[in-house]
């Protein structure tokens, strides 16, 4: 199916089990229902702009799954927003998600192409005009007006091959897709 498998005998080790990923791809091609995952998070408002969220369970491969442990995230706003700064802002979590997703993709693609990575550093910036969320100007959107990612990569590969790694990781990235394409969002409410 894929000549890159042949390079499994190569020497690069980025700590990614590409064989398992390719096996999953093959298995899930024939079992599309198992490929349907649901990712979940839950949150509790604490006080002010501080909310604490956690992730633990998710659904996939036809059954409920869970992380090895619950991961907890404090979400707040900085003091310049007259908040208490108990955690990163929600939009910073988005940037964190993008960096994590693209970097994981780079590692996997590099492993698949037998490219040894020595370092992968990313800086991610999202520009935002507060005139949107503050309702100052209806023509300004609430969200980012642009997102810029810069990768600095040390690897046994040419500049063009490194660029191709980064391009392929964007092509296969969930967070990149979530940020670049519209998503239908449903929010419901119940009174306790």
């Amino acid at each position, binding site marked *: 199916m*894929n000549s890159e498998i*042949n390079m499994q005998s190569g020497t690069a080790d980025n700590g990614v089990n590409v064989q398992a990923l390719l096996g999953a791809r093959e298995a899930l091609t024939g079992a599309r229902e198992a490929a349907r995952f649901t990712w979940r998070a839950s949150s509790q408002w604490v006080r002010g702009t501080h909310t604490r969220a956690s992730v633990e369970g998710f659904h996939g491969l036809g059954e409920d799954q869970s992380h090895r442990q619950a991961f907890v995230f404090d979400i707040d706003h900085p003091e310049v927003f007259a908040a208490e700064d108990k955690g990163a802002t929600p939009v910073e979590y988005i940037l964190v998600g993008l960096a994590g997703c693209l970097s994981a993709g780079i590692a996997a*693609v590099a492993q698949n192409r037998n490219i040894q990575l020595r370092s992968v550093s990313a800086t991610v910036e999202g520009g935002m005009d507060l005139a949107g969320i503050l309702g100052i100007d209806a023509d300004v959107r609430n969200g980012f007006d642009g997102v810029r990612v810069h990768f600095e990569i040390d690897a046994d590969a040419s500049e*063009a091959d490194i660029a191709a790694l980064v*391009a392929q990781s964007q092509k*296969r990235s*969930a967070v*990149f*897709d979530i940020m*670049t394409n519209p998503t239908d969002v449903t929010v419901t409410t119940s009174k306790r």
Partner: protein
Amino acid sequence: MTRNPASSRAVDVVVIGAGHSGLAMSAALAARSVDHVVLERGVVANAWHTERWDSLRLLTPNWMTHLPGQPYAGNDPDGFMSAAEVAGFIEGYAARNGAPVHTGTTVLRVAPAAGGYRVHTDGGDWWCRAVVLASGAHGLPAVPRITAEVPAAIHQLTPNNYHNPADLDDGGVLVVGASATGVQLADEIQRSGRQVTLAVGEHVRMPRTYRGRDIQWWMQVAGLLDQRIEDVDDPERARRVPSPQLVGTAERRTLDLNALMDAGVEVVGRFAGIRDGSALFSGSLRNVCAMADLKLNRLLDAIDTWEHASPDRLRVPPAERFAPTRIGSAPRLRLPLRGAVKTIVWATGFRPDYSWLDVPVLDARGRLRHNGGVAEAPGLYVLGMPYLRRRKSSFIHGATDDVAELSQHLFDHLDQGATGRSYRLPTRSLREQRTYGLEAAVINA
């Protein structure tokens, strides 16, 4: 429609479609005196007569346009045939071979029958031992479901019902898709004075000429067009790769996104949907352009490497590289449709029409399962599909090698009867080298 009184006739092979592929197969069958008919819903080369826009020319130079026993015989080997010229070329081939074409015969259903197939048509039925599907890859435009959400005031067209810019209302035009079709239509509509917005997803960038020769010449001599489906990383993907951004013109101009932007076309990301009366475009434009630029350079590297290694070094100009695709500082993400856009042209590709095929060989998405043109039903074959057996399979001259091999399989089928045989073609060992234009998918959640 009068029904033929002799409404069920027997023949060894029914070929469906009198285009270049079906006629090439017919010639191979005739050479072995295999009793067959070619059923054609319209006239010979029907789609070239009726479903092509006025300015369309082949993406390949005339010297590449040949069929078994019929070379290009004109006096402009480096030119590009118009649709009418292609139709004439194919008609000449049919006439010269005396192909047994039944024109004006629409196939209504193909179903298994004892020892073969029954082919129901509006001119009576045929019973046969083998069927060759040569009705083409472009039967139906593949248009996204979103078309239903387009405001009614906007005129929607597909490439097989678009003729020329004069068909269009005055006002803006959104062209969705940047394969050869999309870039050609965007270019001519922009030149007609209508502002074009071109929505661009993954695409294949190519210069018309490279180092003084046509890019198709390089692809041919370097063996890229002969590359076999068994040798590519991901055959599924290879068969879905859009046509390259090429146009056949006398001045041999390159029609990439930079050229379109120079002409005033606004380039935006992949069409992502309609919300609140606006078309939304993906923010992935930079990446799809970066990928196309990288793949172009990989192709040129492969050509340079081949040229450098070729024993009779060609007297060609030195290697060159093209400017990266220029994307402005903030590509448009939404376009209000009311007012600004009068027409949407869906240049989003085609799919074959198998609505009449009542044989269980289609997958869940309606695609024909086949191995190099041998369908998973004894005696059923398909021709002329993208990368059917080789990269050139969808080219006119690609029919020659595909028909030579598939007709041999078909003859074996007829010789051996229909029992206990393998429908698998031998597959080649996978090559270790990365293949141009193909990226293996890697899961990355």
